[in-house]
């Protein structure tokens, strides 16, 4: 379980990092590495080069404004989770982050890295789509903004181009009077969820976003659905699968139970 050889670059400016990436079609960016290193060790990925961005100053920022929260590429989950301003402006972030792996992994793993890793079993891609956020991507050709709904293509597959670095992610603020909640069921606290979801309730609008139920983060509009039908309506938009961890039937049952639980919690938080 050791990674195959790769060339290693540790640039100290974003410009240098982008320069290396532009000449290396199968290079990968290394930030926290908490998802990437296991893939390399199990040899599920074998990039010819890694561009380690940890020595680039200025990428670990967490900016909070009334419009929302902008998280830099090197901001660790643990720092976002502990940030009081983040909690005030968008409480769904700390709620969901407390379910991201274990505290030890949150100390090194980055929130932006988790998003662009594009794992549908991960919490942050789902939260970004639910909140209608975006990712800022830089390349030697300039920068562009990718809306969350255009970011995820399939399992571990995003529209971020190989020559781009995701420099930050933006999460819009929670509107006044709206409420959020997040919950998931996992075999061991901190492990990948069998099923998880976040919900936003804003007036009559009820939306939920699911984790570990489909190939890409899936947002379901549950506005106007009676409480006893929430899970069934959600399942019309989801296709739970069997795997080594749970049967499809059990996942469907978790969708039913958790959807009602999380929407109720979000409604209470809105009051």
């Amino acid at each position: 379980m050791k990674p195959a050889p790769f060339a290693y670059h540790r640039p100290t400016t974003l410009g240098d990092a982008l320069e290396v990436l532009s000449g290396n079609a199968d290079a990968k960016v290394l930030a926290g590495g908490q998802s990437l290193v296991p893939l390399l060790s199990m040899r599920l990925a074998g990039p010819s080069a890694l561009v380690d961005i940890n020595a680039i100053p200025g990428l670990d920022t967490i900016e909070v404004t009334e419009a929302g929260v902008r998280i830099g590429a090197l901001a660790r989950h643990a720092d976002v989770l502990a940030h009081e301003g983040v909690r005030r402006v968008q409480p769904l972030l700390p709620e969901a982050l407390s379910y991201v792996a274990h505290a030890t992994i949150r100390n090194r793993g980055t929130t932006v890295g988790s998003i662009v890793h594009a794992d549908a079993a991960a919490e942050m891609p789902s939260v970004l789509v639910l909140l209608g956020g975006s990712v800022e991507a830089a390349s030697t050709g300039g920068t562009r903004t990718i809306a969350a709904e255009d970011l995820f293509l399939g399992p571990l597959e995003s529209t971020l181009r190989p020559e781009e670095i995701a420099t930050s992610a933006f999460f819009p603020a929670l509107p006044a009077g709206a409420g959020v909640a997040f919950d998931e069921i996992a075999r061991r606290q901190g492990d990948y969820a069998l099923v998880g979801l976040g919900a936003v309730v804003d007036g009559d609008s009820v939306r939920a976003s699911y984790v570990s139920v489909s190939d890409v983060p899936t947002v379901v509009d549950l506005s106007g659905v009676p409480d006893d039908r929430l899970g069934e309506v959600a399942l019309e938009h989801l296709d739970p699968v069997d795997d080594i961890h749970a049967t499809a039937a059990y996942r469907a049952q978790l969708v039913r139970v958790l959807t009602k639980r999380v929407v109720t919690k979000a409604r209470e938080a809105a009051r």
Partner: protein
Amino acid sequence: MSAQDTVRHGEQLHLIRLRVNGIGHDVEVPARRLLSDALRHDLGLTGTHVGCEHGVCGACTVLMDGKPVRACLIFAVSAVDAEITTVEGLTEPDGSLSPVQQAFSECHGLQCGFCTPGFLTTITAGLNENPCPTHEEAREMIAGNLCRCTGYQNIVKSVERAAEITQAKEAESA
């Protein structure tokens, strides 16, 4: 890459300095050398144990600038700017056991001992952050570490006992 870097078996080696337990070590490693392997093989610090090697078991947990991290999920070349503390660096300056080590001894938190280094580093950092954990918080503190003897009850007791020992020591020195 620096001028001193060499190539072995066709693979680029990197000359790096790792700061571990307060001491700087110059080592030459390939980029793919995991920090856990660099500590064990290149520095001879075999207290850091290697279990699953993909971040699940926590046996390789070390402190990086005081915070617990998985040494198997960090490349040694990526750890050059950090101060690393391994289980060998947890004893008191006079060589006596740290509160967490003493609590493991008193409460039989150590069974076969394989997972122990990861628990000791995790709990040391956890108690720095939360010196008086509740029973639930003590359980949550160790949730990311697996004990293959399933000795969790005594490990949770050790967390609570270590908190008591730390508080008693602080009261003594105050």
